[in-house]
């Protein structure tokens, strides 16, 4: 009692053994925090390794440009002093440095890599560097003339301007390229030649096709989910299995099935010809184009819409609709004004899931998309595994990531992320 009294007098609460209450509270809280930390640690590390680091790696690669400066380490500092507007080629000392760099790079087999890097900016660099690498062993001063003799491109001012531009450790060139832009004669950024504009169109197509697929999934999934939510558990589970079936069939089986169905000599066309809706020599093109991609992707992504909708609808008591009806609303009004608003969280979750999956899909469009059904991710894949232009792939990927984040932000502003229910 006395102790408590003194404690209050001193304006500091203490526990029975005299430690201040705050200290002892903090200590017990710290232990709890530590425990919580240990519980999330494995997941945190997992996410760090499988998600966060790769994304950082991707962002890094989209601007990384060490190769030129590292390999041509004698040439690049000299190039910095060269005035690209002078109209003169770099001087002999720089060419001598280039010869040294080339000899070293050929021995280390890195000259080809620089050539590949610069070839992304301007066709011809690959060959130039390969050719020069083969002949540089026997090169003699004066170096400028010798280089120009190996390939007259070395006497081209544009080549030097480009090397100078791309000699920094970081570059925006990949983003420039990914936005259908390029560098003009004096290194100003201009739109690419119309014949070479491709990515913006693809971003746009990816966006609207994903939105369209999301919308179609919603239109198709809503009634199904509603039906499922009103049925008994046994029946609805059975039907859910049917909805989930696309998950369980292998990609190849699914693809062959679509082809068998949709191709010009396929079942649907046969049927239409037989019914007489289309003429035999005017069969519909439904696969290897946009239609094919849309049909196939809706098929695959539908479950991602059904599941959140179903799980939300199941929790809506049937008494809401009855209440609305008893209050004087006809079936339609009751559904639109009372039932649908209560499914918004499911709609939001389903749409975000489907949209984000759709925007990154590439296997299906690659298999059944043809040319008009190709999406931006197919190009990312192309640059990842065929052209090996990982910098451009990373830039395209980063832009896609940015688009998704912006859309997510807009969604949060309009609908509110808290309003989302995944089930």
């Amino acid at each position: 009692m006395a102790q408590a009294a003194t404690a209050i007098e001193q304006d500091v609460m203490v526990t029975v053994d005299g430690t201040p209450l705050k200290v002892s509270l903090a200590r017990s809280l710290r232990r709890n925090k530590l425990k919580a930390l240990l519980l999330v640690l494995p997941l945190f590390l997992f996410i760090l390794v499988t998600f966060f680091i790769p994304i950082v790696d991707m962002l890094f690669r989209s601007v990384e440009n060490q190769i030129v400066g590292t390999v041509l380490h004698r040439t690049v500092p000299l190039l910095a002093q060269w005035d690209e507007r002078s109209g003169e080629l770099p001087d002999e000392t720089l060419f001598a440095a280039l010869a040294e760099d080339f000899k070293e790079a050929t021995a280390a087999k890195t000259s080809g890599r620089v050539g590949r890097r610069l070839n992304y900016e301007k066709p011809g660099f690959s060959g130039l560097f390969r050719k020069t690498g083969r002949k540089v062993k026997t090169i003699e001063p004066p170096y400028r003339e010798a280089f120009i003799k190996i390939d007259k491109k070395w006497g081209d001012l544009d080549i030097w301007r480009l090397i100078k531009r791309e000699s920094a450790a970081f570059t925006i060139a990949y983003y420039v390229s990914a936005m259908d832009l390029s560098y003009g004669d004096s290194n100003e950024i201009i739109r690419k030649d119309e014949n070479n504009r491709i990515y913006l169109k693809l971003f746009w197509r990816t966006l609207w096709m994903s939105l369209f697929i999301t919308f179609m999934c919603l239109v198709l999934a809503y009634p199904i989910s509603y039906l499922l939510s009103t049925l008994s558990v046994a029946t609805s589970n059975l039907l859910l299995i049917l909805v989930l079936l696309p998950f369980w069939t292998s990609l190849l089986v699914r693809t062959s099935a679509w082809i068998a169905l949709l191709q010009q000599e396929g079942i649907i066309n046969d049927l239409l010809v037989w019914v007489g809706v289309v003429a035999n020599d005017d069969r519909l093109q439904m696969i290897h184009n946009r239609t094919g991609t849309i049909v196939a992707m809706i098929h695959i992504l539908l479950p991602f819409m059904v599941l959140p909708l179903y799980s939300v609808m199941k929790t809506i008591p049937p008494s809401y609709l009855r209440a609305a009806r008893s209050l004087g609303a006809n079936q339609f009004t009751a559904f639109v004004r009372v039932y649908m608003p209560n499914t918004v969280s499911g709609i939001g979750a389903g749409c975000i899931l489907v949209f984000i999956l759709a925007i990154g899909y590439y296997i299906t469009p690659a298999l059944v998309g043809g040319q008009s059904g190709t999406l931006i991710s197919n190009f990312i894949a192309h640059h990842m595994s065929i052209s090996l232009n990982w910098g451009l792939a990373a830039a395209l990927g980063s832009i896609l990531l940015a688009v998704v984040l912006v859309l997510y932000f807009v969604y949060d502003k309009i609908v509110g992320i808290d309003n989302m229910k995944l089930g």
Partner: protein
Amino acid sequence: MKHPKFNLLTSATIAAAIGFGAASTAYAETELVVVSWGGAYSASQQKAYHEPYMAANPGVKIINDDSASDGLAKLRAMNEAGNVTWALVDMTASNAMLACDEGIALEIDHDTSLAPAPDGTPASKDFGDMIVSPCFIPQIVYSTTFGYRTDLAKVPPTSIADVFDLEKIPGKRSLEKKPINNMEWALLADGVSGDDVYNELSTPEGVDRAFAKLDTIKDQVVWWEVGAQPAQLLSDGEVVIASSYNGRLFSAIEEEKQPIAMMWDWQMLDLDGWVVPKGGPHHDVVMTYLTWATDTQRLADQAKFISYGPARKSSAPMVGKHAELGIDMGPHMPTDPKNAKNTLLTGFEFWADNADDLTERFQAWLSQ
């Protein structure tokens, strides 16, 4: 967004996993991971090279890995991770050039590393201009050419110009969804001579001219991307004529007995061969194997199982009958004189420089 993340990381992980597996069993016997294209092609290598070699050298075990289609990307990922586990990789000549430029493939001295021809001709002479890169050990010559439906084509096509002639050959045609080969064919069909094709393509006007020619058939083209597609499209009757690898067409015609025939005019010859990854395992064992597997007899043997021409001149006379079908393989080879009236060897140097740019232009053209 998904893709790079997936690929960078999984490649590294897969590389690590394979490395771990290989290291833990290496004490028993030397395991060589050999990367190739899978399917009939790997099978022909298995029968002609791997099996006889393993029978003669019990200490070596050759393991097939079918990831050649993205071999270059995976090899680069392994190289970046500093853990190269592949002993040999099968690549097209143009990819071998890329790998060499990237510094992820070893340069080979063909004369010291490879066996001479039976008559003593050194390997570099025997392979001749098939050695398009110092890292490349040629294996086969394959051609990308045309197959057509004998029952659906109005008249049998006889020249490359017919492919672009919608009146003579009406109906859908299938081409690969890449500029390579198509650009050359467009110019050839437009009257450019074989010797001038790459000179013409090196000018902006030549590129425009090729696209203009392709424009004339654009809406009748079904574009294929995977090697199995064109034969399938032909078999399904979805297209009348399709470009394809000659080996695939051979299977469709001779093994599956489809009503398809070959049109060899201006076949595009391309090469496929081995590349030794830089920093790969068991270097000495790999080189010994390679010397044996690329000698004259072995290359001739492979042609018993698949209709691709051996890359050595000295192997050509030894090509015999198909091991299972018993048909004479000679007439099915791209190099057979009857088939090789007009041929063009893919311009590797040209494409090494221009593939990025022209692919972009080609894709833009497609989406217009």
